[in-house]
């Protein structure tokens, strides 16, 4: 589990935060949750909150922040604030879809592999380890380049990167849980393998899935932004933080810093929010820290 967690950048951020805040995990979790709720509300109510249509020219290009356009406008005269708000939609949607796909691949494979063992286990483990050993972003770039743009395609590219983390956690836990006495007890009452797997083993590995899931979301958002930044993401003019970031940095030299700053801040804040939140979830679900009584 720990070795798997190291794969996530968000895990390292979380540990760092814990160092800074001391052991005040409660506060970290609370701030994290508040940030997440804020962004989820932005995403859901984007049409109501955003002052302008994010895809339409509403002013002249590269207008600095003013009362009219709080975050300024970009090179095509679109409102940066509205784009950042709408960008939350894309970022969260892709992250959630990617995480769900990754879990949907990793969990069943992990369950089967860990429970049955033998040759099958070795083959699946070999494939998953091969994927796992690739640097995440590079692998996602390769897959995204093959699949082409589109929400689902990006989600799949990210999912492939993170499926092995679910697989590893689940497989290793199942392999040890299947020797637990309550699994033997289930066999003794005559339960079929599929029943043992779903009712006796799965509920016991789910807490660690939740931990991986929450860390995975933060990393998925970063990977998505990375892909868009490199032009492998959503096709313009859809508002997307990663794309806006790369678009904005072209005009920094002409002193238009706002096009770069605000999408960047959005990415940083949301990733931080997920990292904080996942650190709290992790602590709460980690049985070794839990009170023994």
């Amino acid at each position, binding site marked *: 589990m720990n070795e798997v967690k190291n794969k996530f950048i968000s895990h390292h951020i979380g540990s760092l935060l814990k160092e800074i805040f001391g052991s005040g995990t409660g506060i970290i979790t609370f701030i994290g949750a508040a940030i997440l709720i804020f962004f989820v509300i932005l995403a859901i109510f984007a049409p109501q909150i955003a002052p302008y249509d994010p895809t339409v020219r509403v002013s002249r290009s590269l207008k600095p922040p003013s009362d009219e356009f709080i975050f300024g406008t970009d090179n095509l005269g679109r409102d940066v604030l509205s784009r950042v708000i709408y960008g939350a939609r894309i970022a969260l949607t892709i992250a959630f879809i990617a995480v769900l796909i990754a879990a949907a691949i990793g969990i069943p494979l992990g369950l089967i592999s860990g429970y049955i063992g033998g040759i099958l286990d070795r083959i699946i483990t070999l494939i998953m380890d091969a994927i796992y050993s690739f640097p995440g972003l590079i692998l996602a770039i390769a897959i995204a380049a093959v699949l082409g743009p589109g929400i689902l395609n990006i989600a799949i590219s990210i999912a492939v990167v993170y499926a092995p983390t679910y697989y590893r956690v689940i497989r290793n836990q199942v392999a040890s849980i299947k020797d*637990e*006495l*309550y699994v*033997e*007890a*289930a*066999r*003794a*009452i*005559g*339960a*079929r393998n599929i*029943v043992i797997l779903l*009712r*006796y083993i799965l*509920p*016991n590995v789910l807490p660690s899935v939740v931990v991986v899931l929450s860390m995975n979301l933060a990393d998925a958002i970063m990977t998505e932004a990375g892909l868009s930044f490199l032009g492998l993401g959503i096709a313009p003019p859809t508002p997307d933080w990663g794309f806006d970031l790369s678009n904005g940095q072209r005009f920094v030299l002409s002193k238009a810093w706002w096009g770069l700053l605000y999408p960047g801040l959005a990415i940083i804040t949301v990733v931080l929010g997920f990292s904080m939140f996942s650190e709290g979830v992790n602590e709460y679900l980690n049985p070794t820290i839990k009170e023994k009584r």
Partner: protein
Amino acid sequence: MKELIRVENLKKHFPLKRSLIEAITRIPPRLVKAVDGVSFTIKNGETLGLVGESGSGKTTTGRLILRLIEPTNGRILFEDKEITSLKNEALRKMRKDMQIIFQDPMAALNPYMKIGEAVRHPLKIHGIGSSKKEQLDTVYNMLEKVNLTPPRNFYNRYPKELSGGQRQRVVIARALITNPRFVVADEALAMLDVSVRSQLLQLLLDLKNEFNLTYLFITHDLATTKYICDRIIVMYLGKIVEIGSFDDIYRSPAHPYTKALISAVPEPDPKIQKSKKKLIPQGEVPNPINPPSGCRFHPRCPYSIKNLCSVEEPVMKEISDNHFVACHLFD
């Protein structure tokens, strides 16, 4: 009394992991001879005690009879029907009639399953009861029988919310819900506190009478056997050393090991304590990978006969009515 279980020459040898060199040079894996040729019968309605120290093979024997692990050799008969080679569905169906109560009730219960669901699960698995309501009634009934009252309150609790004794009651309820014929109680009372232990022993006795059960009562604690066991088997290092009625074993133990075991039980009465003569053998149970030759107890036995006990394995002899012992002293 009719015979319910017959075990013939049952063996279980666990292979040890070989080192790389051993695997390459094709040296056969070394074996832990956990159970090494035991034969006995259990009559319908009786409680047979299986007594021994750790490493005696008593727990393995219980699991072998229930087919929870595969025997290396030997036969197991349940009501004259061979169950040694039953597979998949047939084996699953058989489990309705043969159940087990484990030592550690916390570990034997799925922490994420409500205890009512845990008790109901065997009914679902074996399709007993036509409706959910009927199954629930059966479960409530059983929870009441094991004194988890009121049952509706207990149904929705999780194992961690119960005390050790209550958890063991759940495990007992789950084992008996399908109305089995035969129950293995594997150190079922060992982890409980003294006052709770006697409560549950009484419960096991009551349930046995009510459901006409046959128990295999596996324990390391000779003192509890007197309340529940009709006959006792004493095991040492994978072999049976003595079989007899409770009185045979307790009042006139024949095998030197049985004698040692009985005299080692701590005596709470200070007067008896002081007058009691102890026959404590030296050393500990040897490693079952390389058990001693001949009689396995001979290196620790105070009565060991030179050139006999270390060479020749003693066979089972009937020394009085239904009292068997495997010892050269009775040749």
